């Protein structure tokens, strides 16, 4: 039932002379939550940003290797990163709602990509996205208020709604709960579990409990290497590599 969504083969990333990702090969599965864990600076966020070509915006960044989504090379000349990013949504570490109304925040993507032709359809997309992001009840009476007026946890769910609204196939999350309190974190985690039924979700996290709670697959990164990749339960109960074991038992990191 699980099939490969994004297949990565021998991916290397350089920032100038800095070799940030070293020969990483990993298959990201569809309708699965994959967690990237590892100490700070290990390259997990860098690798995440390869999957929607956000690294293209950094001029000193160079990427080699093959990244195939549904068998198609996303770094091929024929692929426009702008179109790709509509298919691979991203949620950032710090909530970054636009200084626009809550409605316009969610409507931004669909409008740009021309996903809807009329106001009624747009209203529907906005409502559906906010519902899926489990924030509709809290904001349905204040859709015209600024997105920045919400609390941190609400802002992050708004950003998730915004990412969902463009109907992506993959959702990348870069430490989506690290700036939130435990209650908001629990809400986000519940939401991630919901999203798994429709999307392939990749989450970078510093919290091993979070990785254990929300993911089915876990990859451990260390100093640019992907050390170990497997079922989350396996990684946490029976790691093969010494470095993985040291990290998950808290001996370094």
């Amino acid at each position: 039932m699980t099939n490969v969504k994004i297949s990565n083969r021998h991916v290397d990333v350089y920032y100038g002379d800095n070799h940030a990702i070293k020969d990483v090969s990993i298959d990201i599965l569809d309708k699965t939550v994959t967690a990237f864990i590892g100490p700070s600076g290990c390259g997990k966020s860098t690798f995440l940003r390869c999957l929607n070509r956000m690294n293209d915006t950094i001029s000193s960044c160079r990427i080699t290797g093959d990244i195939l989504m549904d068998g198609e090379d996303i770094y091929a000349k024929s692929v426009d990163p702008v179109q790709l990013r509509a298919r691979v949504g991203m949620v950032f570490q710090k909530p970054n709602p636009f200084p626009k109304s809550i409605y316009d925040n969610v409507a931004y993507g669909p409008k740009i990509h021309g996903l809807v032709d009329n106001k009624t359809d747009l209203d529907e997309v906005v409502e559906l996205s906010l519902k899926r992001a489990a924030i509709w009840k809290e904001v349905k009476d204040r859709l015209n208020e600024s997105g920045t007026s919400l609390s941190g946890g609400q802002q992050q769910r708004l950003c998730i709604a915004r990412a969902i609204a463009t109907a992506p196939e993959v959702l990348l999350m870069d430490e989506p709960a690290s700036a939130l309190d435990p209650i908001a974190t629990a809400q986000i985690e519940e939401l991630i579990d919901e999203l798994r039924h429709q999307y392939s979700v990749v989450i970078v996290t510093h919290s091993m409990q979070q990785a254990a709670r929300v993911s089915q697959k876990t990859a451990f990164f260390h100093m640019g290497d992907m050390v170990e990749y497997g079922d989350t339960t396996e990684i946490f109960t029976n790691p093969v590599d010494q470095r993985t074991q040291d990290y998950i038992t808290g001996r370094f990191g």
Partner: protein
Amino acid sequence: MTFLTALSIVALAVLFYNFSRIRAISAANGVQANLHSRPSYHGLYSFLWVFLVGVTALIIGSILTPHPMVLFGVVAGLSAAVGIWTTRGITAETRARNKAERIVTGILWACAGVAVLTTIGIILSLVFETYNFFESLGWRVDKFLFGTRWSPLSGLQDGVMDPDRVGILPLMVGTLMITAIAMIIAAPIGLLAAIYLSEFASQRVRGWVKPMLEVLAGIPTVVYGFFAAITVAPLLRETGDLFGLKIASESALAAGIVIGIMIIPSISSLADDVINSVPQSLRDGSLALGATKAETIRQVVIPAALPGIFSAMLLGVSRAIGETMIVVMAAGQGANLTANPFEAVTTITVQIVMLITGDTDASTAAGPAFSLAFTLFCVTLVLNIVAMRVVRKYREAYD
């Protein structure tokens, strides 16, 4: 002698600084940890007292003008007495830091006060002189504001002006027309330059364009003035001739264009700062949704920077309204009520210059000059208030 007296104040202040410091150390039996305040604060406290009392005495003494030797004696004596007073009570428990900081706060407050008081003084003198002038017109303020003829000195009789010849409408129209022309040039170019600098230029290009813009913003307006009069105005006239348009050798257009060029650097430099301060996370958020760079700039970055861009524009408008030199040289001095930018016009600031530098008795010329200045002040004040309200209304808080 005054110089010597001043020097003696500084010398005494330094002397008592050290004296207090040493006393504080000995009061603590040489162990610094026993002191409430560090020895340097004890020194600072004495220094400030000696210095302030000395300077105050010197200023008061200079006004009373006694014999220089007496002045010296009194000032030095007072300073020394205060110095001894501050050093006598030093114990380990003396809260010298708090006391010294309170004095420093007072000095800072006084400096801020000077700026505010000066402004209030200027406004009061404007109001006062304007009041007198309007009184001499028999309170025909309507003729002043809406009269179409400006020739205040031609209707002078026994130092009183003819209300029919002090209409500022031509000056107002001239000012607004030149400002409008300047902004039509400067607003789009300045904004687009700022967008290029902040969103597209490489670090290297930005590194030398930005300082250059700031240097450009510092060129004296006189230089732009003769550039306008000697290069731009003839060029416009000849171009106009080609198309059968009659453009005067002094025209609102020439002055407006050059003022526009002059304020481009200020607008783009300020707007660039504002656009740069839009958090990168917003750009990333937009790009990650599959927006192009253009869409991101148009729909996210510019709206977020709008209040700041607006105030950059208003700074440009204020500078255009207040500009004098370029207008004197390129737009003319004759008060001419026209809506045609190809003709010579004059502005409020230029007429103030004409009145004050002319042959007329200063007390006669001051009335209309101050009234013009007051009008100008009101216009820029309203602009500033509007700007502040807009900025406050649309300001977004980023953390």
